[in-house]
């Protein structure tokens, strides 16, 4: 095999290598309100003591308000989505994940906290 053939084969190999070089995909998005509640210690909300006004002052305007028969509920939501992928031409892959930071607070008709829950990880940020 002559040097010219070898150079041709090497050129083909390099071209193939470039063609097979991975391309990457990554994007992310956030939608909702600033998750202030995730930075707070859940223990700072006390059932029977904390009031609706205090929650509104500390956490801010909720994503959703629901009028209950004997009170109100405030619902806070942030959606975080992220997509990662790789392009190899022969095989391509993309994984998109959406996760949510949530908080929900229930108040009685006098505006006192009766139940609440925040997403896992709250207070650890």
């Amino acid at each position, binding site marked *: *095999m002559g*040097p010219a053939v*070898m*150079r041709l*084969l*090497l050129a*083909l*190999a390099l*071209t*193939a*290598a470039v*063609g*097979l070089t991975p*391309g990457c*995909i990554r994007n992310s998005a956030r*939608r*909702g309100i600033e998750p202030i509640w995730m930075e707070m210690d859940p223990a700072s909300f006390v*059932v029977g003591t904390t009031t609706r006004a205090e929650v509104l002052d500390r956490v801010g305007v909720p*994503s*959703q*308000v*629901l*009028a*209950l*028969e*004997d009170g109100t*509920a405030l*619902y806070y*939501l942030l*959606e975080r989505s992220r997509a990662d*992928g790789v*392009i*190899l*031409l*022969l*095989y*391509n*892959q*993309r*994984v*998109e*994940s*959406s*996760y*949510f930071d*949530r*908080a*929900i607070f*229930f108040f009685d008709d006098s505006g006192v906290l*009766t*139940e*609440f*829950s*925040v*997403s*896992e990880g709250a207070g650890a940020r």
Partner: protein
Amino acid sequence: MIRRLPLVLPFALAAGLAAGLGSSCSLVELRIDKDLDLVRCDSFKEGEASLGDVLAALGPPVEFGARDGEIALLYESVRLKESQVGISLGAVLGPGAGDYFKFSYGSSGTDRKAALFLFGEDHVLERVNTLRFEEPFGRSGSIQVLVTVDEIVSMGGLRASPDAFVESRELLNGIQWSQNLTHSALVELRGARSRMGQHALDPEFSRIEANPD
């Protein structure tokens, strides 16, 4: 050094490049929310567990609703996988602009989990329903740019905005609701098609939807 290169390697790489331009396979995955533990959901005892127990164990729900003192919490997670096979248009039609496009055929399958908790006026669990369905989601074909890695089968319903992002949701309060997940007026699975008819039951909501300004 060049003389020592085995012939197999460059030929394999060249063949790989040619094959790559001729066809490609793609896998697209969609994951919505953390995987729901249905065993844990079923472990709550009706008539005993409280609203606080469920909230403490599972966290805030995906959706919630209330009617006549009763409260409904809905938890849900979605996993969807779409497998695609693509053929370069250039490989089919001959060299040209088609080299940069491919015809892709994809099929999707879902693994969806949901749990609905219904609480009475005393905030004690009256009923818990869980469901899991693993089923084909759909099949479709599309012409795409060669390097595109995107779903072909429509996932529009699953990607629907959480209702907390939708204004006037509370106006649905006036509609009677049932324990049927797919016909619930206040909480709905992603992709549920019942909303249109239910909205039509509420003239005020329909009017606002028709005139969002």
